[in-house]
């Protein structure tokens, strides 16, 4: 086995593995995916895994999420059952003054074809009787849902392996050197460099560190979300609700928090108690449920909130995919990045998402 590849993808989370799979469908390139740990030990394995469309704004960003959600049923036919469920999503609000905001959202999303309904309290309670009668209303879309992130990433990897993609886990990248027509990538577990024509950065919350290896400043933040999980309860939540959902096994996953504390996966009692209180505000009957565990996920968020996708300016044959909502966007981002690398152009224009928007050309 030589250490020469056409494409090396750094990061094997939901984005890296999706890009690997979609590239492998062309069956033309030798592809290697490198990860510092094991898939799902990081961000992609510590998520509520919503496929969430309806309140992604502005509408051009919502549109991206919508197309990606639409791809899930087709993806399942290709890679297998990832337990995608289009449950419909409800985002409740408590203040009467939020009505206008909700109506504006529905109007704006309608322009790109995202159907958002504004529901009165009675309409919401009819859809989801467990919700608190104290809510004023909610926005609703039947496009939202959720997926099993463990099956998703595992099946991306399995499908990629069938197409002869190679994987190297527990193997952090330590150095990257750009030579005339290729990159040399040094890793912890290999003495010799891995040579590749193209490199794709899909490091999620580690994008900054990986970018530095190429002398880049990737403007992303690490944001911690703490999630609490109840004991398995009889099925009572049909929809994906802003902040919570009931999993197949009856456990309710609940999380609202966002903290910038670096890569710290601890949970804190302060946030756990706040989270539990918010859950009860939404669904009063949860007051009686036992919490059995909690976990934290550290997500990546680009400085302006929107995905960073495409070729890296001024670096030959180098690409980046870094974004929040990787689970929602993975089928589409995988498709588009594969088009970009293999064909050179994409079916949805990625110009808006270029890293260039952050670069200061004085």
């Amino acid at each position, binding site marked *: 086995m030589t250490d020469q590849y056409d494409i090396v993808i750094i990061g094997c989370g939901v984005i890296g593995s999706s890009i690997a799979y979609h590239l492998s469908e062309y069956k033309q390139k030798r592809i290697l995916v490198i990860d510092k740990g094991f898939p799902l030990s990081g961000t992609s394995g510590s998520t509520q895994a919503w496929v969430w469309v309806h309140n992604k704004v502005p509408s051009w960003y919502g549109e991206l999420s919508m197309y990606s959600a639409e791809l899930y049923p087709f993806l399942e036919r290709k890679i297998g059952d990832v337990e995608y469920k289009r449950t419909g999503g409800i985002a409740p609000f408590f203040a009467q003054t939020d009505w206008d905001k909700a109506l504006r959202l529905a109007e704006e999303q309608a322009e790109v074809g995202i159907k958002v309904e504004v529901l009165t309290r009675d309409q919401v309670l009819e859809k989801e009787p467990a919700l608190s009668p104290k809510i004023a209303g909610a926005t609703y879309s039947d496009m939202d849902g959720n997926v099993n992130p463990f099956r998703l990433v595992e099946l991306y990897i399995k499908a990629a392996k069938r197409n002869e993609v190679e994987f190297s886990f527990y193997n952090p990248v330590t150095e990257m050197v750009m030579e005339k027509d290729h990159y040399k990538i040094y890793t912890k577990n290999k003495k010799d460099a891995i040579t590749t024509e193209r490199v794709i950065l899909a490091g999620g919350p580690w994008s900054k560190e990986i970018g530095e290896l190429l002398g880049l400043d990737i403007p992303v933040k690490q944001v911690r979300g703490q999630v609490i999980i109840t004991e398995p309860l009889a099925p009572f939540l049909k929809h994906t609700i802003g902040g919570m959902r009931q999993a197949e096994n009856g456990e309710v996953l609940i999380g609202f928090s966002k903290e910038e504390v670096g890569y710290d996966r*601890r*949970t*804190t*009692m*302060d946030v*756990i*108690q706040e989270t539990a209180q918010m859950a009860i505000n939404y669904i009063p009957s949860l007051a009686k449920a036992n919490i059995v565990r*909690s976990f934290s996920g550290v997500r990546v968020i680009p400085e302006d909130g929107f995905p960073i996708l495409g070729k890296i300016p001024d670096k030959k044959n180098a690409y980046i995919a870094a974004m929040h909502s990787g689970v929602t966007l993975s089928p589409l981002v995988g498709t588009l990045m594969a088009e970009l690398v293999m064909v050179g152009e994409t079916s949805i224009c990625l110009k808006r998402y270029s890293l260039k928007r952050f670069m200061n050309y004085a």
Partner: protein
Amino acid sequence: MKTDVLIIGGGPAGLNAAIETASRGIKTIIIEESYALGGQLKQQTQFFNNLPKQFDRQRGIHLMRTLIDRLSPLPITCLLKHKMIGVYKDGRIGIANDTETFPIDAKKVIVTTGAAEETDLFPGWTLPGVMTVGAAQILINRERVLPGKNALIVGLNSFSAEVAKQLKACGINILGVMDKTVSVNDKKLVEGLEDKKIRVMVNTVIERATGAGEVKKVTINNDGKKEDLDIDLICIGKGLAPILEPLEILDCEFGFQAKLGGLVPKYYSTLGTSNPSVYVAGNAAGITCLGGILLTAEIAALNALKALGVLNDNEVKVRSSFLWDELRSMESEESIETFIARVAHIKEFHEECELPLPASFHAILEGC
């Protein structure tokens, strides 16, 4: 609530650590999730010959009494039916019972959460009548309930062998104690079982357990030869693994030591962890014998007292070195591999932190 020392877990390690700290007049709180102190000693009717010098040889349940009697005159708070459920941002420990949640502000925390039994997975393992050896021991010694009439024990080790004998003494027919492999170190165990007319089945695994509503039959595979046995009780004795959740929540680092039960918190020769206010002792610091459980608790408590400025360096040095010697002889008697793994584990962490081992520890290293 404020305290100098918070002990998480009121089993033998927690009790012995509390005796050490509270007898020095240090404010100590024990958190215990069950209804009573004593941990797994509550049903250990067997005799323990190999205990630290300060304890007479005695049965586990009597040792529990001894520890509680020593503790009871001391100024200590025991919160029974309370659990540690988290840590606040400012480091205070989150405690809950069924009705309230509150913080405890502790200068030092000693984690003595003990161990959980490992199970074994085979088709039918969820049927009623399939349980761990520890559960079977609770049923006969604590609840006074006969768990079955015809039993098969899966896994050979000192604990499963002991429970096999106790079940037999209760009149249960033991069809055998089975395991995939039996090492030379297990010779004494095998002889002990055969003395009691309990069959030891080597090279044997369970294929499946069956029964409607409860286990009735088991298919075993002895070196390729399959056999059906009529049983109504399967006891799984696959060893123990440290209970680590509180240490995870307290942000302690972990290392892998197979001989200590797998993933174990990293700790110094003081039994202090990577979190400067957290110590670990007992089975949570690596699976060991009862003597090892009691002694590691004393070492941890001693060093917590030193860190609190209650004991001077010299006093701690002298007693530590005495306790480590005793720990070596005690663990060596049961299984020298445990002690060697423990010392390697400590040495690794000191090297990782570039912290020299105390001089007294060098003699111990040479002994290994």
